[in-house]
C-alpha cells in the first residue's frame, strides 16, 4: 500500500475517533501509531504479557480506552491498523515517510488527519537532569506498562490534573508520596463550579483524584512548587516551597528540604506540531493550550487543504475534547471524499460540536488555573542545562541574547540549542517564552525551530532502505499481519 484515501497519524483518542467516524461513513483509512498498541498516552494498552484480572483496578481511563478500541474493532474492515510505525516526516502534498524497525517507505494520502498528541513540557530547574527526576508521564508509563515502582519516596510537583493522577498511581504501587505541589491555586471556587455545570465527568474526575489523596493522607499544597533537586549521582533530596500566586515567582526564604529518591514533575503538555509544520500549515501561539498550534476551521481542517488536525496535537484540551475533535475530522474527511452529503455530515457533526462547546467551557477554567506564569523561569540558574541533547546551559542562552540574538533560530545557531535529536521539542517550549521576556518580543517574532525529516529517531539502515512510491516495495502492512487487530 503506497496510497490511501485517508491516513490518520496518531492512534490516541483523537485518531481512533477519527478512524471510527471515517470508517462508519464508508471511507477506508490507515491508522498509524508508533506504539505497539492503540490508545495513545492516556488510553495506553496494557502489554499482552500482562493479563488483566481486574479492569476496574486500572482506572476509568483504561475503561474509556477499551470502549473506544471496541468501537474501532467494529469498523476493522475499513481501518488498516499500522502499529509500531513511526512517521519521520511528510510533505505538503501529503506524502508520508514512515519507518518500522529496519524498514521505511512512503505513503501518499488523499486526505490526512494529524492526531499527533502532545509531549510533556520541560521546566528546567537546578537538578532537573538528575536520575530520579522524571516527568509525570514517564512515571505513569513505568507504572502502567511495566508495573515498575519508580521510587520509594516521592514529591510530585506541577500543575493541572496529571500530577494528581500520578500521585494516586504512585500510592497504589507502594511509593510514599510526601506531598503534591500544585503551582496553581485552589480550583473550588464558584466560577469553576458554574462553568463545569453539566460536565459531571470532568468534575467527578477531579473530585475523585482529590479524594484519593485525602484518603491516603497526602498533603496537596497549592501555590507551591519544586525549587531544586539535589544529589550526587541521583536524587537524594528536593527543595520546594511557596510561589507568588500571581506570578509563580519562587519565595526562596520559605523553602524546605525533604529526603526523597523520586521527583515527579508535570507542568502540562506541549502539542506535537512537527508534522503540521512540515505539512506547511499556518500556526499561531496560544499559551493556554500549550503554545504553537495549527490554525483550524470548526471542521478541524488546517490551512492546507485536505490536512486536518485533531486532539492535543492541535492544542492541549484533554482526551474528551480530543475524541469530539477526532470524530468531527473523520466525518468531514468522509464528506470531502463524497461519501456523506453536506446535510448528513452536518447532522453527524452536530452532537460533537455541541459536546465540544460544553467541554471547552470547563477547559477554559482549568486552563486559566494551570496557565504557566513567568515566575517559573526564575527556577533555573545560569548553570542549569536548558537543552539536554546538546548540553546548553542557561548562561549560554543569556550570552547569545546579550550579543544580540533576538529569536530562537539565532539562539540555535549561536549555542547549538535544539540541534539534538529532539529538534528543540523539549527545550524550545521553555526557552521560547524566556527569550520573549528577555527581549520584549512576541512569540511570533521569536519564532520556532523548524523541524526536518526525520522528526523521530530512526536508524541509518531504515533510511538507506527507504522504499519510494512506485518501487513496488515498501508496503507498511508487511510483517505485522499478526497485530492487525487492535
Amino acid at each position, binding site marked *: 500500500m503506497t496510497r490511501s484515501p485517508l491516513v490518520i497519524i496518531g492512534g490516541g483518542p483523537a485518531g481512533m475517533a477519527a478512524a471510527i467516524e471515517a470508517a462508519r461513513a464508508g471511507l477506508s483509512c490507515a491508522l498509524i501509531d508508533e506504539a505497539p498498541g492503540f490508545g495513545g498516552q492516556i488510553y495506553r494498552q496494557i502489554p499482552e504479557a500482562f493479563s488483566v484480572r481486574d479492569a476496574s483496578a486500572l482506572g476509568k481511563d483504561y475503561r474509556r480506552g477499551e470502549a473506544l478500541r471496541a468501537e474501532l474493532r467494529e469498523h476493522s474492515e475499513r481501518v488498516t491498523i499500522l502499529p509500531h510505525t513511526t512517521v519521520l516526516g511528510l510533505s505538503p502534498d501529503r506524502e508520508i*515517510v514512515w519507518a518500522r524497525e*529496519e524498514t521505511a517507505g*512512503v505513503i501518499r494520502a488523499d486526505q490526512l488527519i494529524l492526531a499527533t498528541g502532545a509531549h510533556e513540557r520541560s521546566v528546567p530547574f537546578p537538578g532537573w537532569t538528575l536520575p530520579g527526576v522524571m516527568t509525570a508521564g514517564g512515571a505513569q508509563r513505568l507504572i502502567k506498562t511495566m508495573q515498575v515502582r519508580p521510587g520509594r519516596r516521592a514529591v510530585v510537583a506541577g500543575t493541572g490534573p496529571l500530577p494528581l493522577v500520578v500521585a494516586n498511581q504512585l500510592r497504589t504501587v507502594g511509593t510514599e508520596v510526601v506531598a503534591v505541589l500544585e503551582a496553581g491555586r485552589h480550583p473550588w471556587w464558584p466560577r469553576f463550579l458554574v462553568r463545569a455545570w453539566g460536565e459531571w465527568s470532568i468534575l467527578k474526575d477531579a473530585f475523585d483524584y482529590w479524594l484519593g489523596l485525602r484518603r491516603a493522607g497526602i498533603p496537596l499544597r497549592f501555590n507551591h512548587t519544586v525549587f531544586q533537586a539535589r544529589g550526587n549521582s541521583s536524587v537524594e533530596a528536593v527543595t520546594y516551597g511557596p510561589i507568588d500566586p500571581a506570578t509563580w515567582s519562587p519565595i526562596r526564604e520559605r523553602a524546605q528540604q525533604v529526603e526523597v529518591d523520586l521527583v515527579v514533575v508535570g507542568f502540562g503538555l506541549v502539542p506535537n506540531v512537527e508534522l503540521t509544520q512540515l505539512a506547511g500549515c499556518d500556526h499561531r501561539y496560544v499559551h493556554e493550550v500549550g503554545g504553537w498550534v495549527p490554525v483550524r476551521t470548526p471542521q478541524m481542517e488546517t490551512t492546507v487543504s485536505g490536512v486536518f488536525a485533531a486532539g492535543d496535537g492541535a492544542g492541549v484540551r484533554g482526551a474528551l475534547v480530543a475524541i469530539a475533535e477526532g470524530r468531527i475530522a473523520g466525518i468531514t474527511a468522509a464528506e470531502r471524499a463524497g461519501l456523506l452529503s453536506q446535510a448528513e455530515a452536518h447532522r453527524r457533526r452536530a452532537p460533537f460540536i455541541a459536546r465540544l462547546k460544553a467541554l471547552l467551557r470547563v477547559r477554559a477554567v482549568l486552563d486559566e488555573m494551570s496557565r504557566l506564569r513567568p515566575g517559573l523561569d526564575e527556577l533555573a540558574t545560569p548553570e542549569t542545562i536548558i537543552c539536554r*541533547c546538546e548540553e546548553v546551559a542557561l548562561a549560554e542562552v543569556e550570552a547569545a541574547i546579550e*550579543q*544580540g*540574538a*533576538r529569536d530562537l*533560530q*539565532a539562539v540555535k*545557531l*549561536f549555542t*547549538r540549542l535544539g*540541534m*539534538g*535529536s529532539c*529538534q528543540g521539542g523539549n527545550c524550545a517550549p521553555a526557552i521560547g517564552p524566556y527569550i520573549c521576556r528577555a527581549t520584549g518580543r512576541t512569540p511570533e517574532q521569536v519564532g520556532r525551530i*523548524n523541524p*526536518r*525529516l*526525520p522528526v523521530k*529517531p*530512526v*536508524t*541509518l*539502515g531504515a*533510511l*538507506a*532502505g*527507504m522504499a*519510494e512510491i512506485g518501487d513496488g516495495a515498501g508496503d507498511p502492512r508487511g510483517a505485522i499481519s499478526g497485530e492487525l487487530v487492535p
Partner: protein
Amino acid sequence: MKSSDIVVVGGGVIGCAVAYYAAKRGLQVTLIDQPKRGRATSASAGGLWPLGESIGLGCGVIFYKAQLAKGIVPEGADGPAQLPRSFLDFAMQSNAMFPTLTEELRETGGLDIELERTSLLYLIYDEADEAFARPLWRNCPCGRSLSEWLTPEELARAEPAVTRNVRGALRFNGDDQVNPYRLADAYRAAARALGAELLPYTEVTNVRVEKGRVVAVETAAQRIRCDVVVNAAGAWAPQIARMVGIDLPVQPVRGQIIGTETLPDVLSSCLSTTDCYLAQKRHGEIIIGSTTEEVGFDVGVTRSGIKTLAAGAIRALPFLKQVNVKRVWAGLRPGTPDELPVLGPIESVTGYYNACGHFRTGILNSPLTGLLLAELLSGAPLSFPIEPFLLSRLAPMVPVERLSNHPPQPNRSHAVANGEPS
C-alpha cells in the same frame, strides 16, 4: 557616526578569520554578522583535506558518480575534475598553518578548535575506483611521501570498522580535521580579544561608494565610516557585491549532511568514497556528507539525498545500519564557476575586497585567506600570490544596476590603502 578601518561583512569562518588576522596586525576591524539559515560554516564536516579536495575526493567524487548515474559525463573526463596547482598549493599552505593556529587561538581566544591528525582514506570498492586511484597514487601532485596504498589486510588492521568488501584504500597523510563551528567561534573570540568589534545579528543594508571609493557601510541602525569593506558573505556575497555595483558569480550549492548519535571511537581516519564521506568528530558523532545540488537558497533536506548518504555510509561502515540518526541538515556552499575562491581587490571600486566563493573548502582555506587579506589591507608582502584568485580571472565584469546612488567608476586602478602588492 562610527568609524572603523575595515568592515568585514559576514561572520562565517572566512569573515571571522579575516577579522582575526586583520586585528592581529593592529587594524581596527568591525565584523558585521547576520547569521543565515544554511550558512556553510554550520554545515561543514570540518575536513582539512588539501590533497583530497584538490584531486576530487570528498564531495567531488560523490558528485561525479551522481552525474555518471544520470548519464551526464563531463567531456573528456575519466574521474572528478582535479583543481589547478595554484589551488593545491594554496590549500597545502593553509593546511600547514593549523598546528600553530590551534595554539594561537587557544592562547588568544581561549577556545580549542579540536585539530585531530586523522589522515584521509579513499576506499576503493571496485575496478573503476581503482582505475581512478592508481594514477593519483603514482603521480600524486605532492609526491609519494604523503600518500600510501593500503591492501585490504592493512586497511582492516588500521580501521577494523570499515567494510571488508574493498580492494584497498589510498591514504593521504596530512589531510586532517577540526571542529568547524569551534574554528569560527575561536577566530571570533580571538579577534574580539585583539580589539575587533562585533556587530552580531546585524544586516548590512548598503555599502556607500563615493568617487569610486568605499566610504561607509550601512546597517538598519547606523552608518559605519570605513575605507575598506571585505565581502565574506559566503553564498550571500553577490548581494553585498551588488551594493558596489559588481556582479559576483557565486552560487549557493546545497549539501545535505547526516549526523549520527554519539558513538564510541570507531574511526581513526576520515573516509572518502564514491558515495559519501565520513568523519568521526571528537564528541563521538559521525558526520556523513554530502550532496552537491544547485537549488538556490532552499535549505531543506530531501528523501533521496538522505537515502543515498545513509546507504553509502552503511556500505563503508556496515555497523552504522543499526545506528540512529541524530540530525539531518543542509548548508549552502558558496560555489564559483571554476571552484576556486574569489579573493582580493577589484578594478572598479577602491577599498572593496572579496573573501568569498570558497565552495567546499572554506574551513581548510580560512587561515591563508585571513592572512592574505590582512596582508593586502596592511600593505605587507603577500604570503601567497593573489592573482589566480582575483575576480578578474573569471568572466569580464559586467556592471549591474547599482543600489547606491553613485555611478560605477570603471578603469580606476585598485590602489590599496597602503600600497599595491607586487
